[in-house]
C-alpha cells in the first residue's frame, strides 16, 4: 500500500516538475507601453488569448502603472527569467532593448519601426499594412483606377514612396507623386496633380499632414476638382475621404502570438518584421455617392464600417 502511495506521489511530483519546466521554458514577459491606450490593450488582450490556448505562461508589465518602470522591468526579468519579451509600443521596446541582453524580443504597435534599433533575435509586427496590401485592397474596391496621386516630403517619405511606386507598377497602377518641401506648397501642387489622377492617396507624411489647415486644404482642393481621397487611417473619413484601410488591431495581437509560439518552437519566421495580416476597411458611401464614384459592390463583405449621409 505504501509503495502504491509512494508511486502516486512520485508520478505527481514528476508531472509537476515537467509541467513547471515546460512553463518556465515558455515564459513570456509582456511589456505594454500604456494599457490605457485602446490600440495597445486590444493587441495585448488578443495576444494573451492565443498564449492561454497554448498553455504558455506570461507576466505583464504596464509601464503606465509604475513610477519607476525601468527598475520594475529589471526586477521582473531577473525574477521571471522570460524566454521572450513582447513589447507593445515604442516606449516598451526602447526600454526592453536596454535590459533584454540575449533574450528574444518581439514587438508590435511601434510607430515607424524602421527607426528602431533591431538586432538579431528580434522580430516584430509592423503597425501599418504594406503598400502592396493597400494597393491590392484598393484595386478590390476600385478595379478601374489606373492613376493614383500623392504628395510627400523627400526627406521623410522618399523610400516609402519608391516602394509604393514599385508595388503599384506590379499591379498595373501608375503612381503620380509630387514632392513638397513645405505645407504652403500643398495648394499649388494639388492644382497640378489632381487633373492627372483618378484618386488621391493620403500617406502618413509629417510635412503633408503638418497641420489641420494642411488636411483641410487637401480635401478642399480634391472636392473642387471632384477627386476622391483615400487615406491610411479612418481619422480622415470625417473630412471626406471615400475609404480608409488600416491594420486590424486584434489580428496584430494574434499574429504576434503566432510568432511567439513559432519562436518558442525554434521555427523562426521569414523576415524580421512582418506586415499585419489583417485589415480594417471603412467605406464612406456618402462621399462616394456625392462624387458618383463607382465601387465594386462584391467587396462589401469586406467592409467593417459604412458611413452613410446623415438623413
Amino acid at each position, binding site marked *: 500500500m505504501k509503495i502504491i502511495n509512494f508511486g502516486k506521489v512520485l508520478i505527481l511530483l514528476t508531472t509537476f516538475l515537467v509541467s513547471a519546466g515546460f512553463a518556465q521554458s515558455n515564459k513570456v514577459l509582456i511589456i505594454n507601453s500604456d494599457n490605457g491606450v485602446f490600440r495597445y490593450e486590444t493587441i495585448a488582450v488578443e495576444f494573451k488569448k492565443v498564449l492561454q490556448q497554448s498553455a504558455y505562461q506570461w507576466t505583464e508589465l504596464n509601464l503606465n502603472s509604475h513610477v519607476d518602470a525601468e527598475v520594475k522591468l529589471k526586477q521582473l526579468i531577473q525574477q521571471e527569467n522570460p524566454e521572450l519579451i513582447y513589447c507593445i509600443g515604442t516606449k516598451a521596446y526602447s526600454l526592453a532593448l536596454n535590459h533584454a541582453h540575449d533574450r528574444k524580443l518581439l514587438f508590435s504597435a511601434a510607430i515607424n519601426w524602421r527607426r528602431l534599433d533591431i538586432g538579431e533575435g528580434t522580430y516584430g509586427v509592423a503597425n501599418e499594412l*504594406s503598400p*502592396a*496590401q493597400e494597393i*491590392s*485592397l484598393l*484595386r*478590390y474596391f476600385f*478595379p478601374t483606377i489606373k492613376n493614383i496621386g500623392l504628395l510627400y516630403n523627400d526627406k521623410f517619405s522618399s523610400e516609402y514612396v519608391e516602394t509604393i511606386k514599385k508595388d503599384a507598377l*506590379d*499591379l498595373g497602377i501608375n503612381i503620380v507623386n509630387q514632392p513638397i518641401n513645405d505645407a504652403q506648397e500643398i495648394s499649388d501642387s494639388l492644382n497640378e496633380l489632381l487633373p492627372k489622377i483618378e484618386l488621391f492617396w493620403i500617406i502618413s507624411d509629417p510635412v503633408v499632414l503638418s497641420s489641420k489647415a494642411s488636411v483641410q486644404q487637401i480635401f478642399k482642393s480634391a472636392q473642387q476638382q471632384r477627386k476622391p481621397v483615400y487615406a491610411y487611417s479612418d481619422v480622415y473619413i470625417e473630412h471626406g475621404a471615400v475609404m480608409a484601410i488600416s491594420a*486590424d488591431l*486584434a*489580428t496584430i495581437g*494574434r*499574429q504576434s502570438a*503566432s510568432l511567439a*509560439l*513559432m519562436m518558442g*518552437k525554434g*521555427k523562426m519566421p*521569414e*523576415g524580421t518584421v*512582418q*506586415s*499585419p*495580416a*489583417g*485589415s*480594417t476597411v471603412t467605406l464612406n458611401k456618402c462621399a462616394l455617392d456625392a462624387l458618383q464614384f463607382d465601387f465594386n*459592390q*462584391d467587396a*462589401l*463583405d*469586406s*467592409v*467593417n*464600417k*459604412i458611413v*452613410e449621409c446623415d438623413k
Partner: protein
Amino acid sequence: MKRVLPVLLICFLFIAGSYCSVRSNAGSIIYFYNPETNVNNFATLKTAFDTYLVNHGGYYFQPFDSKEKFEAIIREKKDDIYLLSSWHLKALQQKSVPLKIALVGTSKGNTMQRKVLSTKKDIANVAMLKNTVVAGAGSEEYIYSVLKQILGKEQESLLKDIKILIVPKDIDAIMAVGFGMATAAISAESSLNKLAMINPNQFRELHGLGFSEEDYLLVAATLKKPEQQEAQLLEVLRKMSEGAGKENLKLLGIDGWRALQ
C-alpha cells in the same frame, strides 16, 4: 362626462390596437451569426438591415459575434429566422436542434461553395505544413474543422503541429500567404478568383493543396414549419435582392436567396 368616456374608449382601443400590431411584428427577428467570417461589421449590418426591414413589415435584425449567445437564442425556440452557415447548421442538427433550411444564399447564381487550402507552389504537399502558420477567416473551430476535412484521416495528425492565424476576411488570409505572414490559407474558392483580379502576380504564385466538400453558402433556417408571420418575413428576405436590399445582402457575401426545393 358622457362625451368624454367614448372618446377615452376610442383612444384606448387605438393605442391598444397599435401596441398589439407592433408586438405582433416585433416577435419576428432575423438572427445572424456566421463562423466563416471575422469581419467586425455588426454595427453596419444592424443599421443596414434594420433600416430595410422596419420599412418592410416592421421586422428587426440582430447580428451576433458569439456562437454561444446565438445558440442560446435558438434554444429559446421563438418564431424567428436564423441566418447561419451550413456548417453551423449541420453541427446544430447533430445536437438535435430541429433547424430546417428555408432559403439558401446565392452568389452569382451559385448556392454552393468549396473551401480551398492554398499555399505557394514550393509547398508541394500537406506534410510540409508541419510547424507552420495557416491563416483563415472565421472561428478557430471552423477553420480547424475545414482543415481536418481537407487533410483527411491520413494527415489528420498534422493538425496539432499547425498554428491557425485568425484574420478578418478571406482576402486577408490569401494575401497573408503571398506576403509571407502565413504558409497556407483556408478560403472560399471564389476568394481566390478575387485575388486573381486584384493581384494576378500573387495569384500565379499560389496553388490549391486540397479542397473541402461543397456546401451551401449562408442559409436562412427556421425551427419549425414557418407560420404566417415567419413566411412573410422569409418572403421579405427573399425579395431583398430585387431592390434596395441587394446591397445589404452583399454585406453578407451573397447577392440573393433561393428557396430550397
